[in-house]
């Protein structure tokens, strides 16, 4: 459907991930310098200029599994470690939060405002690093260039494509349940009152026209109290976004849990994914690029061991182990089959794309890249 969903998907999911990691780093009393390094490393990788330029080209969104792989790697782009159970939970929280934001957008173009809310928070995270801050500013420019003047109909197609990505996901999130934003069956609570989208009329009036001029009007009763939206959010690099969707809901520190409802499990198993066994070459090429970037980041293995620390998304280690044991089968996924050796001899198209990306093939870099790509290969 839409070929413009990938940047919004990636940036917003990434933004949610950063909110959660920031909260866990504080909750686990990780020293300030280490926390900052983790946040800076991840944001720096996320917003790598070359990767962003590729991401913003019109293309199909990655499959669910590819997206999960990308965020797995991203979460480990620094000295922080997450074991599988915590990574599962992190991903559940990220996806349900963004699904909520996409579902509840008043206008389709509010998707961009939600993205800006995430970007505004990310900019604060990297305030004192000029290099990363300029990467972030570059992404603001890309967002405005590609999305700020899109008509509503196009935004709606983007939104429908995103909703398709999140279809049938009903994982219960304790913050949502507590705030009555989500029901116990995992469905979001949709209110039949509140502000109408900016520019829309409050339902209840029927207007009649004679020869194009307003003639009379009548009213009909409507259950639910609707009010007009008085302000429109800003689509510029700095401004009041008006909507609260996309802001950090973890700012108030409280325990964050997820429960996976049993019917949600069945739902995911039953509906077959779009996931193709042969992902398109552009997606493969970008994942390769990201893998190379991951490989080039961070310190040498020795130093890494000293500085590395583990983040736990659960209350304590026992809980984490418990979850690992009862880990639902849906996460034993096969990763995309990226065979680097085949690519070298591969199709003309792929070689051209790889050539265009012009990744410098130093000895060390490519071996690191190979290792990561092997990790990404599915077990046969």
């Amino acid at each position, binding site marked *: 459907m839409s070929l413009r969903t990938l940047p919004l998907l990636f940036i917003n999911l990434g933004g949610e991930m950063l909110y959660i990691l920031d909260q866990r780093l504080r909750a686990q009393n990780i020293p300030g310098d280490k926390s900052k390094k983790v946040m800076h490393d991840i944001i720096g990788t996320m917003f790598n200029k070359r990767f962003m330029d590729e991401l913003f080209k019109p293309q199909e969104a990655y499959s669910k599994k590819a997206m999960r792989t990308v965020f797995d790697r991203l979460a480990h782009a620094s000295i922080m470690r997450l074991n599988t159970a915590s990574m599962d939970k992190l991903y559940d929280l990220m996806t349900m939060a963004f699904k909520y934001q996409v579902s509840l957008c008043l206008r389709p173009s509010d998707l961009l405002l939600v993205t800006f809310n995430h970007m505004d928070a990310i900019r604060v995270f990297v305030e004192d690093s000029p290099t990363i801050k300029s990467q972030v500013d570059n992404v603001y420019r890309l967002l405005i260039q590609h999305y700020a003047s899109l008509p509503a*109909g*196009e935004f709606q*197609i983007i939104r429908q494509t995103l909703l*398709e990505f999140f279809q049938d996901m009903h994982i219960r999130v304790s913050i949502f349940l507590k705030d009555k934003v989500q*029901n116990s069956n995992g469905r979001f609570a949709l209110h039949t009152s509140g502000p109408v989208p900016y520019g829309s009329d409050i339902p209840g009036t*029927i207007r009649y026209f004679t020869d194009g001029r307003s003639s009379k009007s009548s009213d009909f009763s409507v259950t639910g109290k609707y009010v007009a939206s008085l302000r429109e959010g800003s689509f510029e690099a700095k401004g009041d976004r008006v909507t609260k969707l996309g802001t950090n809901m973890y700012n108030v520190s409280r325990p964050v849990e997820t429960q996976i409802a049993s019917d949600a499990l069945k739902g995911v198993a039953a*509906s077959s994914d*779009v996931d193709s066994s042969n992902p398109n070459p552009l997606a493969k090429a970008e994942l390769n690029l990201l893998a190379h970037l991951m490989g080039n980041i961070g310190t040498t293995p020795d130093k890494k061991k000293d500085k590395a620390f583990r983040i736990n998304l659960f209350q304590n280690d026992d809980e984490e182990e418990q979850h690992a044991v009862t880990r639902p089968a849906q996460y034993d996924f096969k990763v995309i089959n990226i065979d680097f050796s085949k690519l070298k001899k591969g199709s003309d198209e792929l070689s051209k794309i790889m050539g265009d990306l012009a990744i410098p093939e130093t000895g060390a870099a490519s071996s690191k890249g190979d290792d990561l790509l092997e990790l990404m290969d599915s077990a046969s």
Partner: protein
Amino acid sequence: MYRKDKSVQLKGSASCLYNNLSVMSMPDKNVTSYAVVHKTVVNIANCSGDAMNIQHRQVSCKEMGAPSGNSMILQAKFCEFAQRSMLVILSQRGVQMFEPDGSVMLFWHAFGSSDTGQAGEVFGRGVTAAGEGFIVVGTAKGTLLVFAVPPKGPNITMAETLTGHSYAVSDLRNNGNEVASADDSGAIIIWKAGTPFSRLSKIPGSGSTCTAVCLFNEYVAGAYGSGHIRIFDINSGNVQVEICAHAKWIHSMDIAPSAGLLVSASEDSFVRVWEVRKGNESYPEVDLKFSECITDVQLCGAKFTNRNGRTFGVTGYDHNEVACFTQKA
């Protein structure tokens, strides 16, 4: 005016698309078929009269010649003619036409570069039967593809391409030989089916997508993303009535022409039925006859089961059933 009836369970949830419900009733067999798009497949539920016996089928859009997976479907619609009926499926790659039970594929047409939108997006959206033997399909570019369908057999051919829309097509409906097409800018064009098709008039849009369009008598009604329903006079193109019908995007609208009833379903969780009747004035009189909230569901399909509007069905995003309503006696 209506009461809630037994729902029809589906094998999968409905995708968030415009007009995501198509209904075909076969009174002689006492069967009603419901077709709902779920990502890359169409779920068909065949209901016997008392809704006790439901038979399910699934139709997917196999890409011809391409090894990689299935493509996303944007619309599935039963197109009925005097001699035959078909199930038409629009995807990201092209148009496929099947026997109504989805068992046999009769025809396949791939979209080309002339149907591609500005950012390279390719899809079909909006389909209707027209006249005696035409099927018209809308594209991302705004073009309308006209196919000629013989009374029987698979010899379906492409007849012509119509231009006129500058934005992606959102819906297509017909009333006999008259065809209305709507697009993402809210514009509506009225055509007359024939060899070739001729363009009768164009009603300009005001920026909000016209997600559903219905033709009846001398009127054309459009449902919009702004939550409005507007009724225009076909001949003059002047707006006659504007209903502030819903608080959010209207995703679907249908008409029961012999009863003068319109049903609209919106993201705001409400389904509403409106009666449109000729009064003494130049404009028709409109009354809200029924309003129901399907709690916590963003509705995406609404369809009357037959022309007299006695029953209608509604679907919603992430929702696994068709909610059915029947007129109280």
